[in-house]
């Protein structure tokens, strides 16, 4: 998994990090957060995407080894959420890159993030 934090409020970011910690322990499902998109099979995107993020998100998606699963996390990742009317908004994620799974919530609980990704892995 590689984590791309767009123009977010940090909430989804810390809930993703919380997935790694002992209470949720995502590693038991064989998932690991990696430092480079070139090592990743899953791209987690959270936050609304602003004009500055958009080209970078596209570039990261290009660099990803295919097939790559894209998961949009949180209300902002799915639709732009409360920031969709903002003057710098350039998203939502699925208008920029293809998205395989949506995990709504503001922020989604770590359980929801885990459930979403496990479901996605089971499907593929």
């Amino acid at each position: 998994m590689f984590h791309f934090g767009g123009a977010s409020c940090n909430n989804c970011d810390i809930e993703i990090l919380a997935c790694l910690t002992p209470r949720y322990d995502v590693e038991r499902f064989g998932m690991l957060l990696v430092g480079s998109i070139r090592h990743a099979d899953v791209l987690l995107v959270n936050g609304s995407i602003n004009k500055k993020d958009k080209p970078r998100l596209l570039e990261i998606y290009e660099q990803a080894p295919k097939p790559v699963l894209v998961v949009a996390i949180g209300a902002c990742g799915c639709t732009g959420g409360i920031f969709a009317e903002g003057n710098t908004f350039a998203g939502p994620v699925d208008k920029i890159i293809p998205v395989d799974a949506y995990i709504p919530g503001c922020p989604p609980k770590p359980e929801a993030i885990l459930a979403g990704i496990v479901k996605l892995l089971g499907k593929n």
Partner: protein
Amino acid sequence: MSKQTLIPVGPYHPLQEEPELFKLYCDGEIVKDVKWETGYNHRGIEKLAEQKSYDEVFFLVERICGICSTSHPFAFANSVEEIVGVEITDRAKYIRSIIGELERIHSHLLWVGLAGHFLGYNTVFMWAWKYREPVLDLFEMITGNRNSYAMFKVGGVRRDIENQKIPAIEEVLSLVKKKTDLLVGAVMDDPVIHARTKGVGILTKQDILDFAAVGPTARASGVDIDVRRDDPYAAYPLVNWKVITAEAGDVFAKAQVRLLEMYESISIIEQCLAGLKKEKEGEVDVLIKHIPEGYGIGRAEAPRGEVFHFVVSDGSNSPARHKIRAPSYTNIATFKKSCVGQSISDATISLAAVDPCYCCTERLAVALDRASGKRIMNAKEIINHSTELTNKLLQHE
């Protein structure tokens, strides 16, 4: 002059959870200069706030930052209540302080964990985040959400903390206290942490004053400021607590201040809970029918320092102007002092030591010509333009 190497950290760096670009200019191992670039997180919040009603703005400012998601509504509530000139009930004050201090505990635990992670000491990361979970559970019990609590409104709070929930809160607090003891022991007595953090990233008292740094960053350098005491709001004048300071100004002192502040927070919450028991249940809300013309300043002490909100009201349903200044905005500037002259391996922890929150920081907008994409104004012109606008609004009153 010798040749310098540029080491970029970010914008999407595995160490940082948020997007932000740091450019470290290094000569050998030593950092000679540091520059940073923001804008990856700009969401146009101040502009959005002008389109929303006062009730809706709370949900917006809560999402400025997910970690300090109480301090922004806190400051906004303070500023709007200054416009209205209303005094909220004691019960609402206690509840506000309880939420604010619980947030401080979870935020400081989060920082201790991340600082461990930045040092390459993942055990601390895992421990701190494990002990943070009971605090989040508590939030879920009180407010219904782990983060972004939606507790605040103009004139009070949205939900009451029923007295029957108080024993459960006290139970979690005593657990957190024990775990804090453990973490304090683990951090304060560990020779490795001493070696990595003492004398690293030092900020002197003068540096803090020069950069106008706030919060634990300032308090760790012996600058005794805390909005909770200096400009009292909510229940802070009603309870006994003290401001924690340290003198050394290095990363270790910052850790020390934060860890000891957690004890103060626990003590504040305990006193607030005792206060709640005396107040009548359900009196958490003053009815406000109209927000008059005027302007108000609201300050609140976030876990990272002073949050400042300035709201201009034209008597309509939504703010005419809403200015926000978050603590990291000034704290991040101290990197110029704390990182330069350090080795690269110490730079990351020096960056982390101020507990930077980039999503709070993204306040500047650049005016672009839509057709050509060129900048219309430079920074100076934007500042002049904004001064003019503010003056116009003030004259309007």
